[in-house]
């Protein structure tokens, strides 16, 4: 292509990208400082893949299925903790979350509830549960209870957000028809919000399945405790089997619960929720 025969183009000046560049450099610096600041054994890094591969071979080359019945028993214990914890969490957070929704409860209560949810949310669930457990004793029942309490922060937020988004259309219609607050809640908010709330309840169960295994690691019982024990005994073939069980059970429950959630939301895309 011979440019000489064509007239020269007058290009508009390119807008400055200084701010983007500065932002990128800043982020890069923070990341770099973080990585350098970490106490990573750089010299040993090269033999870590080999070590991981060796352990993976120990675990999964011939997982030992001997303790499978026991593992399933403990799995059911973890699932039970998760389920009862989810029920507890949902039963508490639905009324509290509703009261925290705009236009349902009084303003001061809304403020107090929302702040409490935010505070509970900011502390990792596991820490809340862990502290509760050490105080109240390490039994599966208290584990379920701890799961229930620790989840309230997030669950309560989902409830009031759902209620508020349901509010916009439906409640005005009922109010226009002369309904009072209780009637609005029963006839407008509940029908509009119920599917989403159910789906969130199931989602809480899915989250709890993972968290209950973690609580087991610190001694609340269930599959986590068994896993922690066999890791301490260094019985890798059993650990491999337990990991397979954990993954399989979690995936199956995710799958089942996820498809029920999609059914509940009636084909609509299940809302992406944060943990």
């Amino acid at each position, binding site marked *: 292509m011979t440019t000489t025969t064509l007239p020269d183009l007058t290009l508009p000046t390119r807008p400055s990208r200084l701010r983007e560049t500065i932002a990128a450099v800043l982020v890069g610096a923070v990341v770099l400082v*973080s990585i350098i600041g970490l106490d990573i054994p750089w010299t040993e890094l090269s033999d870590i893949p080999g070590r991981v591969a060796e352990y993976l071979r120990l675990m999964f080359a011939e997982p030992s299925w001997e303790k499978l019945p026991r593992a399933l*028993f403990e799995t059911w214990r973890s*699932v039970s*903790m998760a389920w009862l914890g989810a029920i507890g969490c949902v039963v508490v957070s639905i009324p509290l979350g509703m009261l925290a929704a705009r236009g349902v409860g009084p303003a001061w209560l809304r403020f107090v509830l929302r702040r409490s949810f935010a505070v509970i949310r900011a502390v990792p669930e596991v820490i809340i549960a*862990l502290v509760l457990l050490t*105080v109240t*004793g390490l039994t599966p029942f208290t584990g379920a209870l701890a799961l229930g309490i620790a989840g309230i922060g997030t669950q309560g937020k989902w409830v009031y957000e759902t209620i508020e988004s349901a509010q916009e259309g439906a409640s005005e219609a009922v109010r226009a028809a002369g*309904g009072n607050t209780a009637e609005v809640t029963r006839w407008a908010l509940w029908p509009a919000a119920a599917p989403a709330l159910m789906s969130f309840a199931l989602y809480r169960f899915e989250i709890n399945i993972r968290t209950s295994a*973690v609580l087991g690691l610190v001694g609340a019982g269930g599959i*986590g405790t068994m896993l922690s024990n066999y890791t301490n005994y260094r019985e890798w073939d059993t650990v491999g089997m337990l990991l397979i069980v954990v993954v399989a059970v979690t995936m199956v429950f995710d799958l089942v619960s996820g498809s029920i959630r999609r059914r509940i939301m009636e084909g609509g895309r299940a809302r992406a929720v944060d943990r």
Partner: protein
Amino acid sequence: MTTQTTELRMPPKPRNRWRTAAIVAALCTFTVLTCLPAIGGVELDFAGMVRNWANGADKMGELLRPDFSFLPRTITPMLETLAMAVAGAALAAAASIPLTLWAARPSNPNRVTRQVVRFIINVNRAVPDLVFAMVLVAMVGVGVLPGLITLFLFDVGVVVKLVSEAIEGADHHYIEAGQAAGGTQSQINKATLLPQSWTLYANQWLYSLELNVRISAILGIVGAGGIGRLLDERRGFYAYDDVSVIILEILVVVMIIELCSNLLRSRLR
């Protein structure tokens, strides 16, 4: 009168009494099964719980009296926790770019490779974070490295799943234009799909950073570095005034990180 008006305004709801009854029955059965200790269920031991709570009441009281003279000792582990969170999120962000493109339908029409990547991601997501940490500590030894690997794996799972779903939920008309111009899928991905989806990525990267601060705070419980180790130690000594300081500190740090992350997020266009 009014209630009748409201009832008329309700959308007609197709009801199926038998189905409802079956669902309720199934839920009840499931709940009962979870309460049977004989098959592994949870024993609903209310008396024991009341006893425990009574015993624990004074410990709970201690939690409400934080001992702030402990604060200086928490600074270094907290910085370690933050560094782990940032480094893990950054490494995962880099890895998530190609993995997400593999896992999303618009960017990878090949069903087989897409399903393989998705399956691996789902397996990865099915392992609870602390379980990863515990096993990795056993493999590579106590320290920040197993923690970092845990955060990396966890973040990759979260980001790849959420971003690939978001990419699938969006419209990508421009892909057809790229195909019509004779582009390969990787050209289309690099030149158009990535710029188009980068806010989706950035949102989830920030989100994974928020999650990381929370998770890295607990990794120390199994020996994977950070403030969690200190927390576990103080808990072991029943030093609840110190535990409470640590929890307060985590709370503040998590909230600050969330604030920063929301600020950055609102700047994304």
